């Protein structure tokens, strides 16, 4: 599902620090979030200390990639020119089974047909040779 790098003009994460680590795992087809090794709390977006117990010990822990739709918005007006050919598109908050939530797209469904708690699973879009963006699709029943 790779898109040609030469035509990919959408915003990319700044690949450094924790951000680069997060997206490098995606390139390897792994969705991982920070998890405190002392108290077990997940956290996202990345930061150096656990807000629950203040431990500096943590690891990138893999999640299963299954989750559900928590809330969403369907953008019709091209607020960003790089997305003018994508409207209408839905910015979805997905809640992973393990607990952390993230912003993503749910592909393969009309955005106006999204439903609360719709089950979804991750897939990985290699948008450039360097960057892979995790996206979701409905789980087929």
């Amino acid at each position, binding site marked *: 599902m790779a898109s040609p790098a030469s035509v990919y003009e959408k*915003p990319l994460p700044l690949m450094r620090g924790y951000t680069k680590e997060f997206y490098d795992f995606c390139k390897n087809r792994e969705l991982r979030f920070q998890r405190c090794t002392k108290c077990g709390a997940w956290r996202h977006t990345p930061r150096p200390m656990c807000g629950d117990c203040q431990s500096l010990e943590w690891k990138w822990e893999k999640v299963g990639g299954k989750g559900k739709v928590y809330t969403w918005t369907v953008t*019709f007006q091209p607020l960003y020119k790089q997305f003018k050919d994508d409207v209408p598109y839905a910015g979805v908050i997905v809640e992973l089974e393990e607990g952390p939530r993230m912003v993503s797209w749910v592909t393969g469904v009309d955005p106006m047909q999204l439903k609360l708690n719709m089950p979804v699973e991750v897939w990985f879009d290699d948008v450039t040779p360097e960057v892979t963006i995790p996206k979701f699709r409905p789980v087929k029943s």
Partner: protein
Amino acid sequence: MAGSLKDQSCIVGIGESKYSRGTPFSDLELGLQASTAAIEDAGLKPRDIDAIVIPGGFGTTAGDYAACFGIEDLRFTASLEEMGGAMTVCAVETAAMALVSGVANYVLIPFVARWYSGMKAREGTANEASRIPAAIAVRDFYMPYGMGAPPQYYSWMCQRHMLEFGTTHEHLGTIAVTMRRHAQLHPNAVMRDRPMSLDDYMNSRWVTYPYHLLDCCLETDGGAAVVVTTPERARDLKSRPVYIAGIASGHPYPAHEIPNRKDMFTIGLTHAAPRAFAMAGATAKDLDFAEIYDCFTFQTLQQIEEIGLCKRGEGGPFVMGGRIEVGGEVPINTHGGLLSQAHVCAMNHIVEAVCQLRHDADLRQVKDAELGAVCAWGGHGHGSIAVLRR
């Protein structure tokens, strides 16, 4: 009460530039217009000002104002960038702290926003060099999905509220229509002479569902300013003082990351409002009116709930039946708000609350107004609230 800011400071001067879409004036020129008006309204001279709190944004600094006003010994300055749009009411809190501690005597709070002629909010959040505190989460984790504009991430909250509590577009539209109706009563409202019906609202295009165009605030140019001092000094000034009875600010948790909060509705104001009301010795039920940061219709409803005018989840029915109109039980945004007067990050809300409490609000006057609140919202849910009394 030791350490309390209750009734220890007063707003004694208010000023506004003309609000418009497009302006020939610079940020500093707009700020000077509003500040000069506020200082004159107080009956002070520019050199009486000895502290300037810059809420933030748009490039003007305390030093710029001091240089123009000939203030050679400026005692105190502060800037509150982290609060986002809640910076304005938070600046009043900072002014009150400076006054009560004796650090300053006359505090000027000038604010300018050129949302129409300058950089849009959605451009600021997505900019790599952005100083907006939430920029890293937005740039690295939202923007790859085209999600960086306020109506997008605020509508996540709206959608969740609609799903959990059954809030409808009729509820949201009633807020938009009421703000527009109020703007018809204000000579300095951008949407004066442009009335709007609920049908107009329902038929306006989607910006980002569940937000129509008419759920979204204006992008305007303008400046507004207030002068704050102590009650003792206020006695010698020409305008009737409006007392800061209670004031507080607060933050959502985590402040810069919306999806991973325990719920979508607990915001800075949820924490700040009880503090401000306790300080004032009042509750939301005592308010004669409220001026609420209406960046979007739902955020207005959300703040109505979080300050306790009604329970969480009941904001939809609450706004119906004329309750929030001038003449209703608790009029909201009597000047037209950000939705229909102008977007000055609620500095215009503070000015309007003072007008109401001076009983100077002409056609839009809330009868016998004695107590009012101003709520401001910023960033990803920071909040600040001032409970003001006549």
